[in-house]
């Protein structure tokens, strides 16, 4: 139990000691709020701009007026959606993200199962090699991967964006850890009942490791939804297939851009991730912490 909290119940005694504790508490919260403003100010401002009625006059740079819109409207969202056919880009984002999540879960679970539960020649080497990808410096991989995708005819396709990203050490490692925690007796029992390995994986292992699957799925989802550089590169020749993350920046680059619409477009892009984050916040933090422990 923290000391500050023990001292916190305010009794009517004003000893200098207590005052100092209160002072420290105030300073602590003041710093935390300052950091909070730094962290979330850009979002708040974007939100304010996005819901401002732009025909009410004033520019987004009228401070502090633009932070507190006088006339609130949702018209910017409709407008940006229609003008820039955002629906198309939303669909692209959904397609790329969906493929990435499904692919990652599938590949990771399949690879993790034998690594966790079987003895076979080369197992330890394969596992070491997979883990090694975490530290290998890959500064040139994106160049060669583009050349490879081009040769495979996958450049400019969603599959081309997805395939190089779905086999990763993080997912395989996470699922292996989860599988290791399942009692051997369960698997033995299934085998006695004559279950094939694929059945054991899908009927026993996966249902029992749902929390890990969910964690991996959510991490992958947020990463894929937000990704910018790689999709931009793969889809540079197919602008109509770009995800929102790439399209939003293209809006910004437009000659005659309208900040109100861009703010609205940005929010459209941010909302799904924000909702996922808020719902799975604990999981996120714990997943990160797992990296240290």
């Amino acid at each position: 139990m923290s000391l500050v909290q023990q001292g916190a119940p305010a009794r009517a005694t004003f000893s200098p000691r207590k005052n100092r504790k209160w002072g420290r508490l105030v300073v602590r919260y003041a710093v935390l709020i300052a950091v909070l403003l730094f962290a979330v100010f850009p979002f708040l401002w974007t939100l304010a701009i996005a819901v401002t009625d732009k025909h009410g006059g004033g520019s987004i740079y009228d401070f502090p007026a633009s932070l507190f819109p006088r006339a609130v409207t949702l018209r910017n969202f409709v407008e940006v959606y229609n003008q820039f056919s955002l629906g198309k880009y939303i669909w692209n984002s959904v397609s790329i993200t969906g493929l990435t999540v499904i692919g990652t879960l599938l590949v990771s679970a399949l690879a993790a199962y034998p690594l966790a539960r079987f003895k076979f020649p080369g197992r330890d080497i394969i596992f070491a090699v997979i883990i090694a990808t975490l530290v290998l410096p890959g500064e040139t991989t994106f160049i060669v991967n583009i050349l490879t995708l081009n040769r495979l005819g996958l450049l400019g396709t969603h599959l081309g964006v997805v395939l190089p990203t779905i086999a990763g050490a993080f997912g395989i490692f996470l699922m292996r850890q989860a599988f290791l925690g399942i009692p051997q007796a369960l698997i033995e029992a299934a085998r006695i009942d004559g279950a094939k390995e694929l059945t054991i994986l899908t009927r026993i292992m996966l249902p029992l490791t749902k929390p890990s699957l969910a964690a991996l799925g959510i991490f992958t989802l947020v990463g894929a939804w937000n990704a910018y550089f790689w999709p931009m590169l793969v889809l540079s020749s197919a602008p109509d297939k770009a995800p929102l993350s790439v399209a939003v920046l293209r809006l910004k680059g437009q000659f005659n851009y309208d900040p109100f619409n861009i703010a609205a477009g940005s929010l459209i892009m941010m909302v799904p991730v924000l909702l996922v984050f808020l719902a799975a916040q604990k999981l996120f933090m714990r997943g990160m912490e797992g990296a240290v422990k």
Partner: protein
Amino acid sequence: MTVSRRHKAPTKSKYSLRDTLMSYAFLAPALILLALFTFYPLAYGSYLGFTEYGGARFGQGLPPKWIGLDNFRTLIADPLFLKSMVNSVKYLIIVPVLQLASLAVAVLVNKNLPGMAFFRAAYYVPVVTSISLAAVMWDWIYNKDGTLNWILTNAHLIAKDSTFGWLNNELTAFWAVMLVTFWRGFGYYMVLYLAGLQGIPEELEEAAVLDGAGAWKRFWSITVPLMKPTILLCSLLSTIAALRVLEEVLVLTNGGPLNSTYTALMYVYSKAFQGFNFDYGLASAAGLVVAAVALLLSVINFRVFRDDTGGGK
């Protein structure tokens, strides 16, 4: 019973053929993808660094031609490459600042006080924000008429007529980009530090309080030593991340103004994909240099922190 034999008596026949085949079948998708998109590009990319290759989009032209160290000579003679390397190394200034700040914030939110869960979550939101959104939002903040200048003029730190776009100014663009990196990073490291802090036994702190140690003293003599492994991990991660900064630069300034924000990976990217040169050989060579520096910095990081613990590992 066959079922138990294959797991409990590996000495008899070490591996079962059935298990081996099944295992490799299950591993196949991952191994094929890793081979194709991770290991092959590592090897082929390294090879390309010693070749003349490109000139046409996707290298559709002449095959790579071995030219030994020529690319590296070209790099040394290229002022833009030197500038980009210097910038990348200069970018490392962010590492101690970012680490100290996120450790400090982690200490602040580690107490069981009302609202702490909210602060932690809010600080993490920039981490789950796309770089393209960050670019849109920070562009407005850094604008000539943006928030930053508004704050500074109202605080009477700069005169109203002397405002400028922070990303368009050769002197400030580099630091402005770095602040965005900082903004996106501190929540991430804060959570890592938080995990480390929660591993510190409370009795230690309490004993130190009874001994009359002040907060500062407790921080340096208990928190910091016990957090060494976390500090090593975080500083390693952020060193590598700082050296590999690309997206922020690409979306905020595209390397400008006057190349003042050009980083090493920006150079790699632009040699390969921007303009009409498509110089995959030279870009790969530059990538190799960055990879070598990254490796070197990792080793240094390990050295520094291990020496500090007095061989306690």
